[in-house]
C-alpha cells in the first residue's frame, strides 16, 4: 500500500504540474494556473446550477425531483467520459516513464491503479461540479425539505465519489481498445479516428435523446422516468440520494465492481498490455521512388497537419469544435421549421443575430488547435531551431494552420445560419465579421498562450492537449471575451441598434489587432527563449 501511495503521489503531482508551464516557478504563473482552475470550476458549477434549477422548476411541482439527479448524473457520466476517454491511452498506457516504473519492484496492479487514480480524480471533479449544484438546488427549491438533512448530503457525497468509478472503468476500457488498435492496425491513427468518431457520434446521439427527454418532462415526467429503465443505476443513484439507502448501495456496487474488475483485471496483465500497445515494428517493404520538392512554408504547414490528423487525441479534442460549428449550421437548416416556430413564439424578443454569433464563438473556443502547438513541439523543438527558418514564419504557420481549419467552417456555418435564421444580408455580414475576427483572436491568442506557458517536458501529448495551462487559457479567455461582447451589445442597445453591433465588433477588432501585434513583435523572442 505504501508503494501504491508513492506512485499515486507521482501521478497526481504530474497531473497537477501539467497545468503549470515547464519553467513554472514564479508565483505569478502559479497564480494564473490556480485562476484558470477556479474559472473552470466556476463555469462547471454555474452551468450545472443553471440546468439543475431549470429542471427543478419543472419537476418540483410534479414531485419528480429524482429526475434532476438522474439527468445530472447522466450529464456527469457523459461529460466525464468525453473528457477522460481521450486521455487514457496517454496517461495509463503511454507514459514516457513506463520503462522506469515497470523496472521498479512494485506490483503492476499498484502501478496501473496509481495511473487510473489520476483519471478517477479528473472524473471526480466532473462529478462534484455537476452533482453538488444539483444538491444545492434540491435543498433550496423543493418543498419536501429533503435537501435540508445532513444525511442527504452524506448520500450525495457517496454518489459523487462512486459515480466517477464507473466513468473511469468505461474510459479505461475504451482507452485500452484505442491503444490496442493503434498498435495492431497498420494505419493506427485512422483506426483510432474511426473508433473515436463512432464514440463521439454515440455521445451526441445520447445527448440529443437526453435533450428530447428533458423537453417532454413537463408533459409526462412519470412516463419519462418509466422509459429510463435502461439506465437503472442512474435511477438507483437518484433514489438513493433522496433517501433510499438500499438503492444507493446497489448503485455504489454498480460503480465499484466494474472499476475493481478493470483495475485488477488489467492490472494483472498491465506489463503485457503496455508492451503490446507499444510494440510497433517497422515494415521493411518500402520502395523508394522519385521524390517531389516543395517550399519551406508548405512543409511546415503539412507537418502541422500531419500532427493534427495523425494524433487522434489532438484531433478529437481540438477538432470537436469544428464539427460542432458545421453541425450547428446544418442542424439550423434541417430544423428551420422548428426554429421559425420557436422564434415566432418568442415574438421577436430574442436578439437572434448576436446569439448566433455567440454560439459560433463558443464553438470556436473549443477549437484549441494553436494553443497546444508550441508545447507539442516539446522534445522535437531542436528540429525547428536547427532549421534555417526564422521564428516569425514558424509562429505564423501555427496561427495560420488553425485559421485554415476554422475560417472555412466559420464561413460555412455563418452562411447556413444566415439563411436558416432569415437574417438580413447586413446582419449576416456583421455576424460573419464578428466570428472571423474571433477566429483570428482565438488562433493568435492561443499561440501567445503557448509561448507564455509552454509545457515542453510533458510525459505525453495528452497532458499538453487536455490539461496544460496554455490550452485552458486559450479556451476560456476568449470565452470571457464573448461575455464582454454580450455586455457591450446590451449596453450599446441602450443607445442605438448600430451601436449595439459596433461596440462588440470594435472590441473584437482591437483584441485581434493586439494579439497579432504582440505575436509579431514579441513572439520570435519568446520562441527563442524557450
Amino acid at each position, binding site marked *: 500500500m505504501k508503494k501504491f501511495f508513492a506512485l499515486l503521489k507521482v501521478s497526481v503531482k504530474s497531473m497537477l504540474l501539467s497545468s503549470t508551464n515547464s519553467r513554472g516557478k514564479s508565483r505569478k504563473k502559479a497564480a494564473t494556473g490556480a485562476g484558470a482552475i477556479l474559472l473552470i470550476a466556476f463555469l462547471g458549477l454555474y452551468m450545472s446550477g443553471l440546468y439543475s434549477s431549470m429542471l427543478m422548476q419543472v419537476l418540483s411541482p410534479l414531485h419528480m425531483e429524482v429526475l434532476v439527479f438522474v439527468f445530472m448524473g447522466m450529464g456527469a457520466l457523459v461529460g466525464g467520459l468525453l473528457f477522460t476517454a481521450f486521455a487514457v491511452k496517454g496517461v495509463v498506457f503511454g507514459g514516457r516513464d513506463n520503462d522506469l516504473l515497470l523496472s521498479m519492484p512494485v506490483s503492476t496492479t499498484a502501478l496501473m491503479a496509481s495511473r487510473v487514480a489520476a483519471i478517477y480524480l479528473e472524473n471526480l471533479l466532473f462529478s462534484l461540479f455537476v452533482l453538488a449544484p444539483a444538491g444545492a438546488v434540491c435543498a433550496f427549491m423543493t418543498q419536501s425539505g429533503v435537501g435540508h438533512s445532513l444525511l442527504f448530503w452524506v448520500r450525495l457525497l457517496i454518489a459523487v465519489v462512486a459515480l466517477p468509478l464507473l466513468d473511469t472503468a468505461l474510459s479505461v476500457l475504451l482507452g485500452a481498445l484505442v491503444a490496442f488498435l493503434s498498435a495492431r492496425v497498420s494505419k493506427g491513427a485512422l483506426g483510432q479516428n474511426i473508433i473515436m468518431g463512432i464514440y463521439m457520434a454515440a455521445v451526441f446521439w445520447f445527448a440529443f435523446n437526453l435533450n428530447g427527454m428533458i423537453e417532454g418532462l413537463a408533459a409526462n415526467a412519470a412516463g419519462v422516468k418509466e422509459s429510463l429503465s435502461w439506465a437503472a443505476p442512474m435511477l438507483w443513484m437518484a433514489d438513493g440520494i433522496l433517501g433510499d439507502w438500499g438503492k444507493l448501495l446497489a448503485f455504489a456496487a454498480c460503480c465499484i465492481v466494474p472499476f475493481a474488475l478493470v483495475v485488477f483485471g488489467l492490472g494483472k496483465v498491465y506489463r503485457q498490455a503496455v508492451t503490446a500497445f507499444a510494440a510497433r515494428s517497422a515494415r521493411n517493404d518500402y520502395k523508394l521512388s522519385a521524390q517531389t520538392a516543395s517550399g519551406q512554408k508548405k512543409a511546415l504547414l503539412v507537418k502541422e497537419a500531419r500532427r493534427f490528423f495523425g494524433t487522434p487525441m489532438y484531433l478529437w479534442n481540438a477538432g470537436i469544435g469544428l464539427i460542432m460549428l458545421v453541425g450547428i449550421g446544418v442542424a439550423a437548416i434541417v430544423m428551420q421549421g422548428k426554429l421559425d416556430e420557436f422564434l415566432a413564439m418568442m415574438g421577436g424578443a430574442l436578439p437572434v443575430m448576436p446569439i448566433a454569433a455567440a454560439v459560433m464563438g463558443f464553438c470556436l473556443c473549443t477549437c484549441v488547435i494553436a494553443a497546444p502547438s508550441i508545447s507539442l513541439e516539446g522534445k522535437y523543438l531542436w528540429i525547428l531551431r536547427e532549421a534555417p527558418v*526564422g521564428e516569425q514564419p514558424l509562429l505564423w504557420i501555427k496561427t495560420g494552420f488553425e485559421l485554415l481549419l476554422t475560417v472555412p467552417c466559420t464561413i460555412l456555418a455563418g452562411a447556413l445560419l444566415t439563411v436558416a435564421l432569415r437574417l438580413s444580408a447586413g446582419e449576416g455580414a456583421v455576424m460573419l465579421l464578428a466570428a472571423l475576427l474571433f477566429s483570428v483572436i482565438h488562433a493568435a491568442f492561443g499561440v501567445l498562450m503557448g509561448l507564455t506557458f509552454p509545457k515542453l517536458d510533458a510525459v505525453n501529448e495528452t497532458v499538453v492537449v487536455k490539461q496544460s495551462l496554455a490550452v485552458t487559457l486559450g479556451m476560456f479567455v476568449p470565452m470571457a471575451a464573448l461575455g464582454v461582447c454580450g455586455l457591450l451589445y446590451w449596453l450599446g442597445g441602450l443607445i442605438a441598434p448600430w451601436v449595439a453591433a459596433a461596440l462588440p465588433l470594435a472590441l473584437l477588432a482591437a483584441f485581434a489587432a493586439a494579439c497579432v501585434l504582440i505575436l509579431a513583435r514579441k513572439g520570435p523572442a519568446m520562441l527563442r527563449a524557450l
Partner: protein
Amino acid sequence: MLHIEHYSKTYPGGKKAVDDLSLHVRPGEIYGFIGHNGAGKTTTLRAVAGVMDFTEGTITIDGHDIKKDPVAAKKVTAFLPDNPDLYEFMKGIDYLNFIADLYDLPAEQRTKDIAKYGDAFELTGNLGSPIGSYSHGMRQKLALISAFIRRPKLLILDEPFVGLDPSASHLMKGYLAELCQGGSAVFFSTHVLEVAEKLCHQIAIIKDGRLVKCGPTEELVGDSSLEDVFLELEGEK
C-alpha cells in the same frame, strides 16, 4: 568554416557552463571536441548549431554570424544531437522530405541522396513506416541520413557513435571523410577517444567550461595516446 571567438555561456542562476572559448575549424577538417561529462561540450555544440542562445562572444559559420544572421548560417549547417528525437507521427520518408524542403533541396538531388544513404545504412525499406515504430538505432540512422542529404558545409555531431552498430559506425566514418574531402568540415564531440584519435585532424579538450588544449591530433598526442593526454589534463593520471 567555423570561428568561435570568446564564446561564453552562463545559465540562469549564474553557473558559467563555458568560459571564453575560442577555436577555429577549417574547411576539410574533422575537429574532435572532448571533455568529461558536464565540461560544456553539448552547450557549445548547441550554441554553434543555433539551437541555444549564448551570453558572450561570436560564432560564425561560413562567414555568417549565428546570432545576427541565423538563417543563412543554418542553411549551410547540419546538427545532430546526442539523442535525436524525431517526429514520431511522420514516416521516415516524410521526415527526410520535410528536412529537404526546409533546406530547399531539389527533388532530383534528394531522391539520389536518400537512395544513396538509405541503402548504405540499410534503412530504405523502413522509410515507409512511422518513426514511432523505429528502434533507437534506426532513428539515429535516419537523423544521420537527414544530415548527410543536406550536403552541409559544417556538420555538427554530439556523440554520434552512441546507439550505432559497428557497421553503421564504420559507414559513418567513411561518409564523414568523404564530406571533408568535398571541402566541408565536421565538428563533433565524443567520449570514444580511440575514434577521435584516428578520425580527427584537430582535437580540442575542454575542462570545466575552459579550453585546456587544442591543436593537430599528431601534435597533441605526440608519442603518447589521446587517452593518456586526456587523463593527464584532467588530472586523473
